[in-house]
């Protein structure tokens, strides 16, 4: 086999030998082509004879092998190596840069002269020749793998970061409901109920027999697939949003309808006249524009107007031929109004039958007349008089419609100011329009408010209803106060995560550690016996915080004291009033009776001077609190001592220690009160010594503690709201991990929030 391969190699070499000079010769190639062909043929002959030889050789080898195996020992066939010699190969490039070095130009030189090579590839080859940059050697395997890993990690990290928003939302949420994808409430479709249920009782059997006899489907889906898809497509929240939108639209529509109905019902001719006139004016304005923009449509309109004129001319509608006109004509002799009406009608006829050449002038004149008429009687005079009595408290409450009416009036007056030249009737119209706009604006503002609230909730599971009653407001206040803690804590945690200062886990969480002891608790009595841990032992009482300011304060108060002399006022003798002995049946609320009672007490304790004894007591307390001078002089130390000898004044001065004055007493300005400032140590056992972790200042913590949770102090709703547990799970439901749908839901919610 080895030999055969060698033969093949020889063949290759032969071919190579033939081709190398060909490249060198270049243009002679064509001439030698035929010759070469013949040479190849000759070679083939040689090769075939050689192959035969090889066959013989192989057989011989086999035979030899067979013989050798007979001996028992198998001899391994020695493989022969064949290596291509350097001088023979066309691929090897000599390093010495000798004459054998092959250049790119050598290789592609042929193509330039060969007309068979297309121009395009020639161009490409030329470009290739110009480029001298060598390709970088590939990176090592480790390096490439590292890069690949890094890329993959970046990808995975960015993918995972999609969940950021939903996770932070959950961290901040007041309440979490599990399982996340809860089955929608309401009746389940029949087919799902029936699926895992077989007929058991005879009644059921009968029913199913009947159903099957009548070929009634028992497991037929109630919803078509399309309906199901639509149900699946729309979530509850989306549906709610959509419903709210629809409701709003419907309400708006109903407003418009009601308004139209009201308009229609108005009997005032004047109003309608104005209305039609306004419409006409509007139309004309529109028409003028239309002439410029859309002449064809304008022409049509013109035709229509012409047609109306023609109709008017044809008919006798506004001439004195109708029944009404005739009756008016009879009345006209005696009645001024009837005459006026007739004139108006005739005027109308004239107007309608006029050619439409100068419609604007006409209108203008009429407008002027109108303004003259209405200026005399401003519209707001007609408004209902505010008949409320200021003294009557019941009338102070506002009715629900009033604000809108007032607003209406306001807008009206505004309109009047802005467009004073326009007729009052038109003003009214405009005002009504503004009313509509105001309504819409109100809607918008409401919606924005609602949105703001929603965003405030920031992903809370429940959307809180916006309620305006006081109870709810109170609710929110209280719950705000109470939820402060949790919100703060979460916020703080977040900030902690961000800042990441020097925080050994055990130091930051020191408060969270369990107190693990060898005592087992079985009864409540055991709990009482638990010994206190040393860390919980109270520290030193908080000393006075800011003495300088206090001192200042004291200085001021000293000045004041002289002026007031409250104690003197109190020590004055009370003048006793004789009480009439007749019994009186009066309400206890009567202030006089209270006074009487006080005097009665005074009478009863006339003997002992309560007030003065109280004052004495207070003075004693004050004196006790005053810092005392400590005398540390040692008589006889450094000089003679004995009876009648006193230490010198210098020493007495030196060794007298005056302690700093105490901060002023709290009851300094309260003459009738003694506030003991001694600390009750038994209480400190039950007090919080240091500010707990999530809180930032004492005020926060105190307000949190001060707001009660129970239903003794709060309304039912507040209690419900405040005592909502943070995590709610359903009994017996499997909570599956967060799925991709949650992300979609969250995104949809965000989109909806942005959109609306």
């Amino acid at each position, binding site marked *: 086999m080895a030999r055969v391969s060698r033969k093949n190699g020889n063949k290759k070499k032969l071919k190579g030998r033939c081709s190398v000079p060909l490249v060198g010769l270049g243009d002679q190639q064509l001439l030698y082509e035929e010759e070469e062909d013949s040479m190849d043929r000759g070679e083939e002959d040689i090769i075939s004879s050689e192959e035969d030889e090889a066959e013989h050789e192989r057989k011989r080898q086999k035979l030899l092998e067979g013989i050798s195996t007979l001996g028992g020992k198998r001899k391994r066939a020695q493989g022969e190596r064949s290596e291509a010699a350097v001088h023979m190969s066309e691929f090897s490039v000599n390093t010495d840069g000798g004459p054998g070095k092959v250049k790119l130009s050598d290789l592609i030189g042929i193509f330039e002269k060969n007309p068979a090579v297309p121009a395009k590839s020639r161009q490409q080859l030329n470009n290739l020749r110009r480029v001298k940059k060598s390709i970088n050697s590939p990176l090592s395997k480790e390096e490439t793998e590292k890069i690949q*890993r890094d890329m*993959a990690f970046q990808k995975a990290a960015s993918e995972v970061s*999609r969940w950021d928003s939903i996770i932070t939302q959950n961290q901040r949420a007041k309440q979490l409901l599990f399982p996340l994808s809860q089955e929608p409430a309401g009746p389940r479709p029949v087919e799902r109920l029936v699926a895992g249920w077989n007929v058991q009782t005879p009644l059921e059997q009968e029913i199913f027999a009947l159903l099957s006899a009548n070929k009634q489907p028992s497991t037929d889906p109630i919803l078509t697939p399309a309906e199901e898809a639509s149900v699946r497509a729309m979530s509850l929240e989306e549906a709610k949003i959509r419903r709210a939108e629809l409701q709003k639209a419907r309400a708006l529509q109903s407003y418009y309808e009601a308004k139209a109905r009201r308009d229609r019902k108005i009997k005032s001719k004047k109003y309608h006249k104005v209305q039609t006139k306004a419409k006409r004016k509007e139309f004309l304005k529109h028409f003028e524009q239309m002439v410029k923009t859309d002449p064809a449509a304008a022409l049509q309109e013109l035709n229509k107007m012409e047609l109306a004129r023609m109709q008017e001319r044809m008919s006798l509608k506004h001439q004195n031929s109708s029944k009404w006109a005739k009756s008016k004509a009879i009345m006209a002799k005696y009645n001024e109004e009837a005459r006026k009406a007739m004139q108006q009608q005739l005027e109308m006829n004239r107007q309608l039958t006029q050619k439409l050449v100068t419609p604007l002038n006409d209108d203008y004149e009429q407008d002027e007349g109108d303004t003259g008429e209405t200026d005399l009687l401003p519209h707001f005079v007609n408004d209902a008089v505010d008949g409320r009595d200021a003294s009557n408290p019941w009338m102070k409450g506002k009715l629900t419609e009033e604000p809108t009416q007032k607003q209406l009036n306001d807008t009206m007056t505004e309109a009047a100011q802005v467009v004073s030249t326009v007729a009052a009737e038109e003003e009214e119209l405009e005002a009504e329009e503004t009313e509509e706009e105001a309504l819409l604006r109100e809607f918008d503002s409401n919606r924005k408010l609602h949105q703001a609230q929603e965003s405030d909730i920031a992903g809370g599971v429940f959307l809180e209803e916006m309620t305006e009653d006081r109870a709810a407001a109170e609710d929110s206040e209280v719950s705000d106060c109470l939820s402060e803690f949790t919100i703060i804590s979460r916020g703080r945690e977040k900030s902690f995560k961000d800042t990441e200062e*020097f925080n050994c*886990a055990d130091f930051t969480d020191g408060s969270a550690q369990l107190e693990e002891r060898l005592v087992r608790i079985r009864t409540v009595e055991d709990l009482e016996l*638990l010994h206190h841990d040393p860390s919980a032992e109270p520290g030193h009482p908080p000393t006075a915080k800011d003495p300088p300011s206090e001192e200042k304060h004291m200085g001021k108060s000293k000045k004041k004291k002289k002026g007031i002399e409250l104690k003197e006022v109190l020590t004055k003798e009370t003048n006793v009033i004789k009480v009439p002995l007749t019994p009186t*049946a009066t*309400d206890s609320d009567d202030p006089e009776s209270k006074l009487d009672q006080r005097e009665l007490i005074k009478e009863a304790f006339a003997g002992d001077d309560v007030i003065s004894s109280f004052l004495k007591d207070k003075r004693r307390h004050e004196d006790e609190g005053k810092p005392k001078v400590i005398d540390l002089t040692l008589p006889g130390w450094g000089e003679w001592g004995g009876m009648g000898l006193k230490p010198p004044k210098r020493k007495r001065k030196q060794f007298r220690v005056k302690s700093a004055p105490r901060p002023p007493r709290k009851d300094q300005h309260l003459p009738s009160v003694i506030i003991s400032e001694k600390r009750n140590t038994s209480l400190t*056992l039950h007090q919080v010594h240091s500010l707990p972790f999530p809180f930032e200042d004492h005020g926060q913590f105190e307000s949190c503690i001060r707001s009660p949770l129970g239903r003794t102090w709060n309304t039912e709703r507040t209690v419900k709201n405040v005592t909502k547990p943070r995590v709610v799970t359903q009994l017996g439901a499997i909570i599956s*991990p967060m799925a991709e749908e949650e992300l979609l839901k969250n995104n949809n919610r965000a989109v909806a929030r942005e959109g609306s």
Partner: protein
Amino acid sequence: MKVKVLSRNPDDYVRETKHDIQRVPRNYDPSLHPFEVSREYTRALNATKLERVFAKPFLASLDGHRDGVNCLAKHTRSLSTLLSGSCDGEVKVWNLTKHECVRTLQAHGGFVRGMVVRYCGNSFFTIGDDKTIKQWKMEAPGYGEEEEPLNTILGKTVFTGLDHHQKSGVFATCGQQVDIWDEQRSTPIRSFTWGVDSFSSVRFNPVETELLGSCASDRSIVLYDMRESTPLKKVIMTMRTNTLCWNPMEAYCFTCANEDYNLYTYDMRHLERPIKVHMDHVSAVLDVDYSPTGQEFVSASFDKTIRIFSKDDGHSREVYHTKRMQHVICIKWSADNKYILSGSDEMNIRLWKANAAEKLGVLAPREREAVNYTQKLKEKFQHHPQIRRIARHRHLPKNIYHQKNELRIMKEARRRKEMNVRKHSKPGSVPVVSEKEKHVVSVVK
């Protein structure tokens, strides 16, 4: 003279039936309730005391294995089913409501190293020391039928960990390398290697379902993406990590149980330092499992205790132990967030309540309200020393107690020494290394 007569509408104070609650008219004016804080404080104190008195977490012990319980598996569809594999290759299926074994099968020759229930709940996979992966039907074989695996795959090496994909028929094993298998094929569709190491556990991310994490014996935690041909990243810690568990509600968080008595919660995007270090165990932590709500997790340790940690807290909120429970090998938190199951060396599986003082079963609405209220009260007054003292008290076995004290002293000594060194050396030359950074050796890209 004015005479005022009391007249009240009986509707305001008379109940409709005697089963109604007595109506109590209330005035919520805060000035009328000067002692609300102290009254609530007393209520909170009482509630805390009662909580400690009623804290009886141990529910049942399931015995029947003839060797230590080596692995547990939750059923994905049924809350009342539990699977357990022991060190003698036996797998038992338990009914938790009846506290009885419903099926026993000899799955493997040696240890049952890992077990996982397929997402559909119809079958489960086991791996054992006999280098095989076996798939079994969840239903017991009918009368006369033999207990046979649906499918057996013979591997080249011993498998040590197993987990199944959340949604598709793909599972992962680990041993000398991490392999991803298609259920339909007998050869892995992908295998990951990164240096020479042997892996102890592999877990799929339940949220971002294509990601995996594994713990290697060279003290590293390696992350993978099933779709990529290479691993993602590796973090090397000071000591070996035994298992890890992904948070089912937070896609990028996982917690790992370490040999150095601690648990570490990582954000997979920032492996340089853990988010939190959870301490309290006094021996190696062997297993960890998240609650399905993702708020807490439970850990099993070689120190014969189970501890429950909040995911943001450095210390445990609860410790469970019994006299007879030995080294706890495996632990699971039930899918309804109510129970904890632990398998330990002494052949027993124990059922615990997740909240020790919680009343089981359905609560009446008023009962529920009362529970919620007391819970909030306890939360509100948790910083008061007397209440904290009672709420935090736990009984510990003597040896663990002493061990804990010892550890505390050691730690304190180390801290003091470090402080002294810092004090007596050039400022800045001995930097403060936070606890979080101490345990991470390096992150390998």
